[in-house]
Every structure is written in C-alpha cells, then in structure tokens.
C-alpha cells in the first residue's frame, strides 16, 4: 500500500509533462487530461485514506523509500515519502480542492488559447505541493517547497504579456526565495547539529542539543514559513499575486500553497516545542499578520485583493495557533482545512462574478448582483458566513478554537494574543460584510458606466478578447464552474461541524502533532460569547457604512489609515525605497567599480608599460655617437661594478 504514495505525485507530474511537452496537438483535450489526472490523484488519496483508517491510530504512518537521491560521504538525502495523518489531511485537501478547481478552470479559461499550458502548470503545482507534504526529509520538502514556488511563478505570470503580471510573478518568486534562504540555512544547521535532516532522526534527537541551536533552526524555519505563507514581513507578494487567473488565486493563494508555512511549523512541532522563544516569535508574527491582513482587507476595492488580505489574516490565525504549540497545532490545521474550503469557495465566487462582469474587479462597480447570479450569490454567501464564523458553520468552530487556545496560552501573552485574535474576528466580520454588501446588494452601480476608468485596469485580458468595454450584462456562470462552487460551499458549511463533533479531527491528528489542553483563564463559553459580540459589532459597522448609505462609485479619499491600507500599509513603498532603489544603486556603483577599478588596474598596467616603452624608445635617437656614449658608460659601469664587487 505504501507503493501507492508515489503514484499520488506521479499522476499530476505525468499530466504536467504530457501537457507541457505535448505541444499544440493536445490543445483540444489538454484541460480534460489535466483534470482527470488530478482527480485520479484524489482517488488514490481516498484509497490511501481508507487504508489509514483501517489501521489503529498508533500505526497510521506509511513510509515509502524510493531511491537514494544524493549519496555523499556523511551526507545522505533519500527520496522517501512519509504518509501520516498530517500529510494525509493535506493530500486530501490538495487533491480534492485541486480537482474541483481544475474543473472550474475548464470553464473559466475556456477562451484562453493557452489553456493547455495553464492546466500543465496546475498539474505541476499539484505534484510539487504533494511532494512538499509527503517528503520525509527537509531537503526533499525543499524541492517541493521551491516547486510550488515555481508553479506559482508561472501561474501568477500566466498572462505574461501584461508587465504587471510578469512583475508580480517575479516579485512572488523573489520574496519566496528570501524565505527559502531561511529553509536552506535551517537544513544546514540541522545537518551540522544532527548529521541528518530527515524528520525521524531530527525529531528524535531534539533533546540532545542546545536550545540556542534549536531556536536558530526554528527561527530559520519561521522565516521560510513567512515567505511561503505571506506573513509579515514577507507578505508583500500576495496582494500582487492576484494578477494571476482567479482559479490560481483560489487554489494556490488561498487554499493550499500559502498554507505550506503552517504545515512546516506544525510538522516541525518537535523542534518548536523545544524552542519557546521561537514559538513566541511565531505567535507574534501570526498575531501581527492577522491584524495586518484584516486591515488591508478593509480598504481594498479590488474584490480579489480584499480576499487576498483576508487570506493573509486567516493564515495569521493559523500561524498564531501553530505558535501556541501542542495546544494549537490541531486547530491550526483544522482552520487550515476549513479555510481551504470557504476561501477557495469565495475566490471561485469572485471569479464567477468577474466572469459575469467582463472581468471587472472593482467592487465599486458591482452592486445588486444577487438577482443576476443566484448560485454564485448563495455559495459566496455561505462562504461569507463561514469565514466570519457564523455559529454552526465551519469557520465558527475552527476560529473559535484558535481564539480559545490563544487565551489558553496564559499570562499576559495569552491576553494580548487572545485580544488580537478577537479584534481580528471583528475586523474580519467587517470587511467580509463590506465585500458582500458592495457586491451583491445596493443599487446596480455597473449600469451606465461610459468606459472603465484607467486607474482600475482590467485584471484579466480575456476582456480585451471579448472586446466588450461598454455596459456589462451580468449572468450566471456555466455548470462546470458552479458545481465546484456548490461543493466547496457544502464543505464550508458542514466541514467544521463534522470535524469538531466528538473531536474527530483532534483524535485523527493527535498521534502526529500531540495535543495538550492549555489552562485558559476564561471559560470556553466566554470566549465564544466574546467572539459573537465582535462578530455582531463588525457586521453592524459594515452595514452602517455600506448597507444603509449608497456606495460611491469612485472611492472617497478616506482616512489616513485607509489610504495607508490601500497601499498595503506602505510596505511596498518601504521595499521599493530601501531594497529596490538601494539595490539599483549598489549594482550600478559596482558595475562602475568593476570597470574602472578592477579592470582599470589591468588596463592601467598595460598602458603604463606602453608609456614606459615610448619613453625608453627615445633613447634610441639614431646618432651613432650617443650609442657609443651608452657603450662607454656601460663599460665604465661594468668595470666599476666588478671592482665594487671585489671591494665589498
């Protein structure tokens, strides 16, 4: 049964290979091949899941050793897969949501002549993501880690002829590379400390080394996680990543890839548990990010960017939870899964809206769409309720648990983190309600729009293809798109309840992550109550701002915070000034140095000899008598020198 694990990865990998090498002759069927193979991978995942359930909780870890990858003296990297409850969860999430989004893309990318390649990239992503979660050592994980980075690079920049897209893709890859630096340093540290970087040996020997080492390793892992999961300070790429086609945003930048950081932390729980300082850092990063993302989410008028902000903030929750240690691991993963459902659903919904609105992304040009695209409205709405944590829906369970856990951390930290989490909940309720209202309620602001204003450029060039710039005709999306939305909506409604009732999920993951009940200063019910209050407050404020009053079609100037938030709280500006400008100056000056100094020395020497030669040449003035003089002088010197030699 272990041998099936490789197939999980093989299927989408094959798909990618076939689609990318296959060439034009596959254009007609390419998308179906892609979808089929990802579905196949999902089926294999189910089979393995069944197999795992068949075993007792203690022995639900399958290891498949494929071959020895890099055998060098004292350095062993093998291609070995580990399938345990944690990775199983991810496998199902990835392949499941992945397949749905493949299906959705069939419809969404219908009019793109490079659809085949798109599906090739999607499959490539699946393969890499599965490798990431199935790897049994950090180096192999690193391969998957960069693999998803590559896939995301290709997909964000899928519409390469748009400079904005190309830039966004490059930015994403670069920021991630910074994170990857952290991962590779962590691996090197592990190697020098444990002589290995395979999960088993590392975790089992955590006890044998100094805490300082472990903290260093943990912090490096955190850096990696920040890069991949768009956590502060490496979050800046996620917003721009929305340049990619919406399915990509749904799959990669909401449901799966961006959560890899959480996976990394949870997977390395053993290390983090032994490094409390690092854990604190993790929680801080999580808390800051969840507020940061939420605030950004409030200010964006671009529906996808708003959702991106929310993604950032939700992952903040997960990271926060993961930072809490055994108290939080399970809930981090649980929220990750439920978030996978509803956020993917929301993005697909957004995509469907854009599909119907000539790829308009500015929510200020939406409004009253509920009667034009009912299915989208309902699924989106359910997703909305789920994310704000409406009682009974999946978000409610997972987020509530995290907030509890935050308090359970105890001490002032506990209060601060819990408070941040609560505040985040309130803001979440606010901006999601805002999105909801601006999109589906209010008057139809998209009517009698002469032409789209230049400063809100189309996110998706398909519009140009269809050449409709005039008034859009909102319409429901085709089945192939709505079905996945419905499925995901179902997931986001019942997922949480299904997991939480009888702590199913807890018991499922506990063997891997371990679990401990913190001693919360406040009772669970109080927390829930507080959460509800925050929720209501958030919704109320949003309603007051966007439900009662009509939404202006052109964004008002807004408060300082709003304006800052619109610019991602000036993070990009900081990067631009410090890194980009500084870097440009550095390189330019280095080029100058290389040319004048390093090369100059060489050319200077040559020139120097030339000049010397030219000067010495003049001695040869053509007069025989001066030649005789030099001979005479030479003879004199010769004699003198010889006598001198004898004298000394």
């Amino acid at each position: 049964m272990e041998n099936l694990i490789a197939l999980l990865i093989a299927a989408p990998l094959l798909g990618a290979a076939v689609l990318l090498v296959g060439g034009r002759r596959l254009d007609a069927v390419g998308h179906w091949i892609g979808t089929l193979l990802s579905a196949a991978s999902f089926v294999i995942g189910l089979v393995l899941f069944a197999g795992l359930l068949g075993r007792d909780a203690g022995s639900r870890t399958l290891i498949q050793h494929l071959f020895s990858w890099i055998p060098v003296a004292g350095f062993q990297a093998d291609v070995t897969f580990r399938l345990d409850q944690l990775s199983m969860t991810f496998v199902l999430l990835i392949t499941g949501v992945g397949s749905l989004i493949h299906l959705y893309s069939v419809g969404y990318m219908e009019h793109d002549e490079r659809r085949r390649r798109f599906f090739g990239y999607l499959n490539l992503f699946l393969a890499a993501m599965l490798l990431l979660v199935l790897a049994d050592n950090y180096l192999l994980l690193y391969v998957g880690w960069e693999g998803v980075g590559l896939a995301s690079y290709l997909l964000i920049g899928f519409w390469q002829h748009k400079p904005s897209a190309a830039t966004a893709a490059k930015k994403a890859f670069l920021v991630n590379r910074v994170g990857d630096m952290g991962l590779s340093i962590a691996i090197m540290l592990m190697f020098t400390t444990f002589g290995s970087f395979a999960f088993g040996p590392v975790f089992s020997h955590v006890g044998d080394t100094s805490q300082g080492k472990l903290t260093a390793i943990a912090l490096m892992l955190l850096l990696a996680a920040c890069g991949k999961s768009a956590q502060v300070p490496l979050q800046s790429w996620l917003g721009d990543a929305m340049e990619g086609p919406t399915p990509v945003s749904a799959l990669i930048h909401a449901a799966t890839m961006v959560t890899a950081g959480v996976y990394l932390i949870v997977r390395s729980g053993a290390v983090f548990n032994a490094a409390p300082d690092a854990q604190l850092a993790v929680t801080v990063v999580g808390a800051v990010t969840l507020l940061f993302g939420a605030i950004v989410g409030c200010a964006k008028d671009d529906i996808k960017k708003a959702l991106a902000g929310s993604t950032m903030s939700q992952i903040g929750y997960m990271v926060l939870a993961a930072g809490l240690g055994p108290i939080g691991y399970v809930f981090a993963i649980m929220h990750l899964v439920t978030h996978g459902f509803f956020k993917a659903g929301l993005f697909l919904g957004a995509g469907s809206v854009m599909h119907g609105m000539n790829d308009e992304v500015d929510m200020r040009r939406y409004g009253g769409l509920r009667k034009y695209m009912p299915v989208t409205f309902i699924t989106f709405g359910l997703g909305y309720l789920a994310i704000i944590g409406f009682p009974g829906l999946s978000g409610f369970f997972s987020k509530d648990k995290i907030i509890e856990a935050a308090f359970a951390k105890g001490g002032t930290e506990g209060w601060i983190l819990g408070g941040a989490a609560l505040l985040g909940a309130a803001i979440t309720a606010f901006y999601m309600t805002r999105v909801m209202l601006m999109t589906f309620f209010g008057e139809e602001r998209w009517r009698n729009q002469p032409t789209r204003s230049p400063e809100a450029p189309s996110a998706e060039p398909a519009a140009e293809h269809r050449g409709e710039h005039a008034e859009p005709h909102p319409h429901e999306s085709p089945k192939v798109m709505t079905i996945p939305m419905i499925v995901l909506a179902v997931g986001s409604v019942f997922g949480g309840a299904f997991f939480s009732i009888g702590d199913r999920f807890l018991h499922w993951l506990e063997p891997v992550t371990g679990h401990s009940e913190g001693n919360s200063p406040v009772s669970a019910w109080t927390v829930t109550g507080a959460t509800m209050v925050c929720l209501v407050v958030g919704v109320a404020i949003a309603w007051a701002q966007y439900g009662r009053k009509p939404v202006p079609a052109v964004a008002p100037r807004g408060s300082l915070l709003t304006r800052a938030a619109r610019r991602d709280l000036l993070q990009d500006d900081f990067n631009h000034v410090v890194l980009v400008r500084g870097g440009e100056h550095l390189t330019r000056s280095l080029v100058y140095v290389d040319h004048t100094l390093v090369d100059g020395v060489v050319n200077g020497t040559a020139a120097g000899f030339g000049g010397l030669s030219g000067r010495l040449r003049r001695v040869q003035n053509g007069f025989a008598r001066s030649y005789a003089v030099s001979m005479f002088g030479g003879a004199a010197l010769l004699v003198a020198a010889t006598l001198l030699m004898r004298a000394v």
Partner: protein
Amino acid sequence: MSFPLLTVTAALPALGAVATAAVPAARRTAAKWLALVVSLATLALAITVLVRFDPGGARYQLTESHAWIADFGVRYELGVDGIGVALVALTALLIPFIILAGWHDADPLETGSRRWRPTQGFFALILAVEAMVVLSFEATDVFLFYIFFEAMLIPMYFLIGGFGDRAHEHGEETASTQRSYAAVKFLLYNLVGGLIMLAAVIGLYVVAGNFSLQEIAHARATGSLHMATSTERWLFLGFFFAFAVKAPLWPLHTWLPNAMQESTAPVAVLITAVVDKVGTFAMLRFCLGLFPEASKWATPVILVLALISILYGALLAVGQRDIKRLVAYASISHFGFIIMGIFAMTSQGQSGATLYMVNHGLSTAALLLVVGFLISRRGSRLIADYGGVQKVAPVLAGTFLIGGLATLSLPGLAPFVSEFLVLVGTFTRYPAIGIVATLGIVLAALYVLVLYQRTMTGPVKPQVSAMPDLRVRELVVVAPLIALLIFLGVYPKPVTDIVNPAVKQTMSDVHKKDPKPEVEAAK
C-alpha cells in the same frame, strides 16, 4: 601495456582538427560534418572511458606512462580519477552540441581570398581545444598538464578573436576591434597566469626533481621529499594564481565578460563550460594534491575571495545590459561556489564542487546556446532590444526559462544538488561564510528572472514580432541538455558514485576529516 584509451581519446579530436582544417575551401559543409562526426566519435571514446573506469578501483586508472623529456624529468603520464573521468565525459559531451549550435556561425560573409577558410578553421580550432582540454584532464604529470594548460590558449584565442556575433550594433569595424581587444585580454591574462605558474613549475622541479603527481605525492607522504613551508607556499601561490585566472576568481575575472561578450555563443560555452573548468579542476588536483599544507594555510583568504566572487558576480549580473555579459558574471558567481566548495575541505564541499563543474557546464551550455539562438535571430545582445519573445517563440522562451532556472539552481534541476552540497560543505566548517553565501541564491533568482522578464515577457516588441521559434537543429542541441539537467537533478547518484572515491582521496591528501555533527543522529 594495454590499449592507450586515454591517448586515443585526445588524439582523435586532434587529428580531426588537422583533417577539418585541410578540407578545401569550397567544401564548408563537409568540414562541418567531419568535425561533428569526429566529436561524436570522441564522445563514444569518452563513454568507453567512463565505462571502463571502476570507481572502486585504484585512484588513477587507464594509466599510460612513457619517457618523454628525461632532462626535465618529464614523463608522458596519463591517468584519470573520478573527477577527471567526469570532466572528460562532460567535455566530450558538450563539444558536439557546441559544434551543432555553431553550425552557421563561421560561414564567411564575403571571402577575401580563395584560400581564406574561416569555417574549416572554426571547427578545427574547436576540436583542437577539445583535444588539449581532454589531455589536461588526463595528465598526471605536472609539466604535461602545464603544456596543454598553456597551449589551449592559442586556439581559444583565435576562436574568440576570429569569430564574433554576426550582426553587431556598431558595425563590423568596431566589432572586430572589440573582438581582438577581448581576445588579447583573454590571452594576456591567462598567459601571465601561466608564466607565473611556469616559475612555480620550475621551482617544483628544483625541489622535487620530477613532475609525476603520484611520485611527488608519495615522496611527500613518506617524508622522503621535504618542502620548506615558505617554499611550499610560494609554489602553491604560483600554481593557484594561474588557476584563479583561468577559473576565474575575483579580482582576476575581468577577462571573462569581454571574452564571452565578444565571442559567439558556442565559443562562450566553450570558455565557461569547458576551458575554465580546467582551472577549478587543477585547483582540486594540483593545488590540494601537491601542496596540502599551503592549501590549508591559504584557505581563509581563498574562501573570502570566493565569497566575494559569488556576491560580486551576482550583483554585477543584475546590473548588466548585455545578455552575454550577464551570463558571464553569473558564471563568475558560480565559479565562486565551485572554488568555495573545493577549499571548504569537506567531502560534501568537494563532491559538490566537482558535481558543480559538471552541472554548471550543462546549465550554462543550455542557457548560453539558447541565448545564442536568440541573438542570431534579432542580431543584438542588448536586453533592452527584446521583449515579449515568449509570445512569438514559446519553445525558445521555454527552453530559455529552464536554462535560467537551472542557473538559479532550482531544486529538481542538476545545479541545485551541487550548489546545496557546496553550501552545506562550507557551512559545516565555516558557518558564517556559508550563510552569507546563501544570499547568492536570492541574487541568482533576481538576475535570472529580471532577464527573463525583460526579454521574454511583456508586450511584443515590433523587431521580434517576426522571430521564428527554435528550428530542429536547435532543438536537437537544447533538448538533450535539458533532459540531462532534469535527470541529474533527480538522480545524481551515477555521478556522485564516480566522484566520491576521488574526493575521499583528495581529502586524505590534505589530511582533513569532515567535522562530526554535534549529535550522531543518522547512524
């Protein structure tokens, strides 16, 4: 005395060069085919060497030894260890692609005289270089090595100075002057290095009395040959200088950008992927093998220089406007990695460095040859002259991207394995240097992706709108390289198995042991 396989492997291309040069002026195509066939035959021989080589066996295998210049204590001694085998194979592998890629690079525009035969010359010179490079990988006699180390400059010099990119922004006149400047710079740089090495070679003779690598090593091991510390250091410096120029190591690198910029892409590949490898190879075999103590003495400085090369090369690559110059600086950065791996004095570092030589050969070849195809289409080397190529020539763009990703050593492609090994190997002994070096990863991503974005993406520039996609010949060149890059990225074991024993030997040469991990976890 068995069949002299190594000699034949080198002699074949040499004879091929003569034959190619002798082809009559009118028969250009014949010359091309002849050269191609010869290079393929050489490849076959190299593969036989690879097969006949037994990783578990003696250090130097397939050895040949004949008296040559007794007065100088010089013998004609050939032999290959794992490292040599790998590099011989790499050389023999790349040459056919180089020839194929340069198929039309030397077609005369208008011929001045009927006896002027540039095409024949071009391919003959390439084969001559191959012969000399192969011999320098095989020589186990310092003097013999030196001879070919120096002699290969001449054909390279003519290749750089004699054959440049077709269309040039400032017309043929300035082009030829710039070319000859680059060629002279290349030659003088390396000649100076070589002559300083000559002084050291003579010094070695004065000290040791012969040039046989094995004999000297053995004599030193048994203590029958004692070198004063200062002597050893001076000799080491003499050797290292030459290799550092060839490699090239900062600050002796400035010849490379000019040379690569002015020469045609295949020749540029010949420089970085093949000829420069002799430098790093020689560091591993001669510097460490002959002067272990001095090598250890110099390690800190060399590591710092290597580190500078890594970052400096990468940063300058970011700042370039000329595609080939960019690749040149990228190579400088990579050579920094190789040298760092060699002098980290750990098995990971040295295996990584050796692997790196091979992988860098493949990745640079892939990238540069595609760049060459690109330039031959648009007739400009300036990044700014391109844009949106991806739309009109997707296959070209795709291969270009893969080459680029290999250059930034993306996991899953061959260079990643070697680069990571080098980093780990360095880190275990010199953590600080290892960490700073990882910055190179980010910078590599920067210059590759910027290059890709500027040339391939964005709106299609009018000048490139009519650009044809890769032709069959060009695909035949690129596809195998990419396949190899992927294969060696996923399954480098075949190479590591060959390399590891040799590295073990080198480590014992310098009496170094890998630092033990803090806790013995793996075992």
